[in-house]
């Protein structure tokens, strides 16, 4: 019997696994079966007790799980990054229906990076010494300083709260590194390729539980023609929760 199980609200990867897919090695969780799929049997128990090394997958010997998360490879070539980003923008542009669509696509690409990077930066800070951010201002400061530093090698230039609206904050970077070499032609209006970075911020905030919309706007100043403001609009529920809890 091999039937695809469709479980609501669990991601697509589950649907690819069926009940009859049993692990040959006794290791590996099958969400369609539950905890009995990877329960400890006589075989697996003896492997664990004796710490025998076994090769579960073709790349077990050097899997991602064996590498060190704290490895310091802080610097990459700006040129290769720029060429890569240039191709990313081109690729999004080719598939997009308009300027807004292009910005949304860039935002979407950044979103997943933000989700993952948030956890990575927190791990690198050391779970024992650092704290979980639970307030709006704290998480924004964390993104503005620690996260910016590990992504771009510098902290963002400013962090401001909107004077008019309660739920709007701004992170300002005078020279966003990914769009350093990008000149947006006039016919593209107010397109800003840092929408990608806005996506990273949005992904990080959303996964930390501070639901927000983030957009990038070019607001040049005389000596900083590429100055970009990342406008963060929090969901009403986030503001409400903060008011109820901390005031």
């Amino acid at each position, binding site marked *: 019997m091999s039937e695809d199980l469709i479980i609501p*609200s*669990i*991601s*697509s*990867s*589950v649907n690819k*696994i069926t009940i009859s897919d049993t*692990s040959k*090695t006794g*290791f*590996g*969780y*099958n*969400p369609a079966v*539950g*905890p*009995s799929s*990877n*329960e*400890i*049997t*006589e075989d*697996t*128990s003896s*492997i*664990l*007790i004796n*710490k025998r090394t*076994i090769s*579960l*997958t073709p790349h*077990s010997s050097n*899997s*991602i*799980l064996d*590498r060190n*998360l704290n490895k310091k490879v802080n610097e990459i070539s700006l040129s290769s990054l720029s060429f890569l980003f240039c191709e990313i923008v081109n690729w999004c542009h080719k598939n997009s229906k308009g300027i807004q669509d292009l910005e949304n696509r860039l935002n979407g690409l950044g979103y*997943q990076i933000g*989700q*993952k990077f*948030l*956890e*990575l930066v*927190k*791990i690198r800070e050391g*779970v*024992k010494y650092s*704290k*979980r*951010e*639970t307030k709006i201002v704290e998480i924004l400061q964390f993104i503005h300083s620690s996260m910016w530093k590990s992504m771009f090698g510098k902290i963002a230039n400013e962090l401001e709260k909107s004077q008019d609206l309660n739920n709007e904050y701004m992170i300002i970077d005078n020279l966003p590194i990914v769009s350093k070499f990008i000149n947006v032609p006039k016919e593209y209006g107010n397109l800003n390729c840092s929408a990608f970075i806005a996506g990273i911020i949005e992904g990080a905030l959303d*996964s*930390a*539980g501070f639901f927000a919309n983030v957009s990038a706007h070019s607001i040049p100043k005389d000596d900083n023609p590429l100055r970009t403001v990342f406008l963060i609009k929090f969901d009403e529920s986030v503001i409400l*929760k903060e008011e109820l*809890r901390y005031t």
Partner: protein
Amino acid sequence: MSSYYFTIIGTKDAPIYELEFSSFKLSSHQIPGKSQFPPNIKEILPFITHSSLDLIEESQWSNNQYNLGKIDSFYGISINAFITQGNIKFVICYDNNSANSKYDESSIKQFFVEVNDLYVKVLMNPFYSVNDAITSPDFDLKVKLLARKYL
């Protein structure tokens, strides 16, 4: 000699990894590490875990630690939880018949911290996205080794 039921819960409150095991320390049983939950408890464990989610969310915002410690108990089953910055919950249910509960707490915390490391490593895989079930056999093996080491 405790049995444990460990779950990783995604941001949408769906489980993405589960594991049942027992302490490897006293191998009086035929298969060391095999969970000893009686069948009637075994089948309510996912429900106990699920009902603890509300309590986790409550302390998620009132506490800025990662390890939330013991958050609930139910019919002699204790529930400990840990939450990452990215809203991924680690929950462990265990039958609390160990005499030294202080010791248990700190080793569960150790276990959580190391699983968090492994989880982030899984997250670094470009073919894995947040809230996918973790089906990797390598991950499973590493978690079980941690279980053997700490619990």
